[in-house]
């Protein structure tokens, strides 16, 4: 009887536990549901559909008409234009990430000394945050204008030959990189300034007592201390760079000679200008996989050096 009682008691306890568990689960589901539904509708469903389209020949109306398995992928990997676009994208992303992070850090370092006018310069350097992509692009269009632009006026004053920024193969990609770096600078600058402000002053005081060089201080104190922010800025800039569209569309349309034809722009052209949804879907999936790979690589390679407190 004793045994039976304990067993019954056990069952009751188990039952209430189960009920409790179920309740918790239901509540959790309720909380998750809104974002699950939104992610499902706006992220996962389109993703699955994109994979689906990438395995079809599609007609001009974007309807899948013939299942062709993975041959879209095969064609794409043999496509010279796509390969060139891929290479361009990698150069672009690498340069944008590097230049943005380095120049934002340099500017943040310069303004981290509390001198007269620092606030003014900080405001200037952060101000590109408030500029939209289209405004920035138009601004740079005026600068790059080959006959009446500011850049050539300056070069002319220095007795240098004019540079055809947007129409010369050798300069066009750099011109777009410059525009994007300029745009990204504001945010990265602000984030790094914040990080620099948070480095504990006693660390520097100790270093001063030890009498180490400025470079030593930067490399062994500042850099490790701001590494989480630096890592964050680098990752965000990289992902943004992969998705750059507006500047390319407004400045070069991917030209001249496809020299600024980033993959995102090629996807847009294939889907909405060339009306080839199958090809565009295939390119999108390849791009998604590449971004995932690069992000993983970045985490594996650089996160070890990040010092979280």
């Amino acid at each position, binding site marked *: 009887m004793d045994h039976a009682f304990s067993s019954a008691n056990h069952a009751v306890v188990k039952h209430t536990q189960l009920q409790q568990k179920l309740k918790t689960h239901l509540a959790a589901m309720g909380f998750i*549901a809104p974002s699950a539904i939104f992610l499902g509708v706006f992220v996962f469903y389109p993703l699955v559909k994109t994979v689906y389209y990438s395995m079809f*020949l599609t*007609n*001009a109306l974007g309807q899948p008409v013939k299942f062709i398995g993975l041959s879209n992928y095969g064609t794409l990997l043999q496509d010279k234009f796509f390969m060139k676009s891929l290479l361009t994208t990698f150069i672009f992303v690498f340069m944008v990430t590097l230049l943005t992070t380095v120049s934002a850090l340099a500017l943040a370092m310069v303004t981290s000394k509390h001198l007269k006018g620092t606030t003014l310069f900080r405001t200037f350097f952060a101000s590109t945050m408030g500029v939209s992509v289209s405004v920035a692009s138009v601004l740079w269009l005026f600068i790059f*204008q080959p006959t*009446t632009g500011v850049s050539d006026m300056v070069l002319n004053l220095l007795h240098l030959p004019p540079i055809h920024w947007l129409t010369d193969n050798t300069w066009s990609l750099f011109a777009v990189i410059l525009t994007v770096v300029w745009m990204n600078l504001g945010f990265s600058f602000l984030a790094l300034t914040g990080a620099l402000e948070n480095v504990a002053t006693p660390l520097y005081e100790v270093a001063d007592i030890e009498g180490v060089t400025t470079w030593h201080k930067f490399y062994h104190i500042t850099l490790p201390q701001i590494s989480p922010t630096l890592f964050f800025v680098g990752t965000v800039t990289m992902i943004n760079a992969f998705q750059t569209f507006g500047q390319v569309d407004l400045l*070069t*349309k991917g030209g001249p000679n496809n020299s600024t034809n980033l993959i995102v722009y090629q996807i847009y052209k294939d889907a909405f200008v060339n009306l080839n949804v199958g090809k565009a879907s295939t390119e999108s999936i390849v791009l998604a996989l590449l971004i995932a790979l690069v992000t993983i690589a970045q985490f594996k390679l650089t996160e070890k050096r990040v010092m979280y407190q």
Partner: protein
Amino acid sequence: MKKKYVMSLIAIVLMISIVLLGMSRLSRPVSANQRTTIVFWHSMGGKPADALKKLVAKYNASQTKYTVVPQYQGAYTESLPKYINVANSSAAPAIVQAQEIATSTMLSTKSTEPVSRLLDSQVINQIEDNIARYYTVDNQLQSLPFNSSTPVLYYNKSLVEKLGLKPLPEDPSYQDILNLAQAITEKTNHQTKGMTIEAYGWLFEELTANQNQLLANHDNGRESGQYATKININTPAARRLMTFMKQAIQDKSFVSYGSGDIAEANQQTAFLAGKLGMFMQSSASTGDLQANAKFKLGVTYVPHADDIARNGLTLGGASLWVNKHQTTATKEGVTDFLKFMSSAQSQAQWQLATGYLAVNKNAKALPQVTSAIAKDSNLGVATKQLETSKKNSVTAGPLVPILPIERTNVETAMQSIVNGADIEKSLQTAEDATNKALASYNSANHMQK
């Protein structure tokens, strides 16, 4: 806990109902005592947009049965995919403006009603033959040509006169252009560059058409029961055109502005600033240039190759398509509206406001047009250039689906040639890539054949 669960459920239901409510608002009810609404998607910006709105307002004020609502849906390349998405649904607009190179794509949506079934033959017959031929497929006028243009050559006439040079003839040859470009460049000590040719697929198509070169096989894809299976890019005509361009580069009288909208904007800025002697652009720019040039503007036909007589041009621009899934009342309204838009009066007003060619034959006889041309002969050049074009499959224009891809490839080839690449090789690369795209398009879209 339960409460929160219920709350989140309520929130979801609320959100869904907001979305549904929003969607139900999209369908417009039409009651008997109200005017029938006709939705008109267009892609006109800037000056032409104002002119279009004026025309529509004039129509709406002229009668009480219909209200035409013009809606800007972005540039041609933006509005086309939008239309394709809704073409066979209740969200489709009654009228949509589509670019000339989208003609084949618009037909493949199988969502349109040929305008020759709506409009009287009396109205149709007033449309300029060389314009109507472009949009005539299977002996039906598929859409109503509305804004049509051809490229013309613009040059700085004041500068030419100041330098003591001879103005260009009405129908110049490549050599005429090269001579003048070189003279301008040398006499201004390279302060003004003689000429440019924008890396623009449309110009390439027009200048090879002017040498009677078909862009696609099967009569430019117009042969009955056939469709284009080969696009010709590496042709003698194209090589002559590229050699002409290369010669100007060698003469150092050429400046490159690249391709796309910025190239257009930049060459126009340079031209207006007196830094560029000649360039080719749509006749639709005449009004803008005339208004902004601080010098005498010269306008002539685009040049023809030496020793090859001018064949004439095909047209650019856009036309108005009627969606077939509309109520009878809407269709009647559309018919009435299109009749108004294609009338000589409307077209004269349109031409004078924008520089597009009037598509109505009778427009050029109207006093407002004759007096404007008498005052400024530049305004009549494009019309005459098109009228005097030979009537053949080349000038009827290509009925080919993948022209945007063809243009991108041609523009790439033109730019690499400007940057020093071999003419034949570059053109062949463009031709191969284009035909590969065409073959893949045909296999996806003509499977039944």
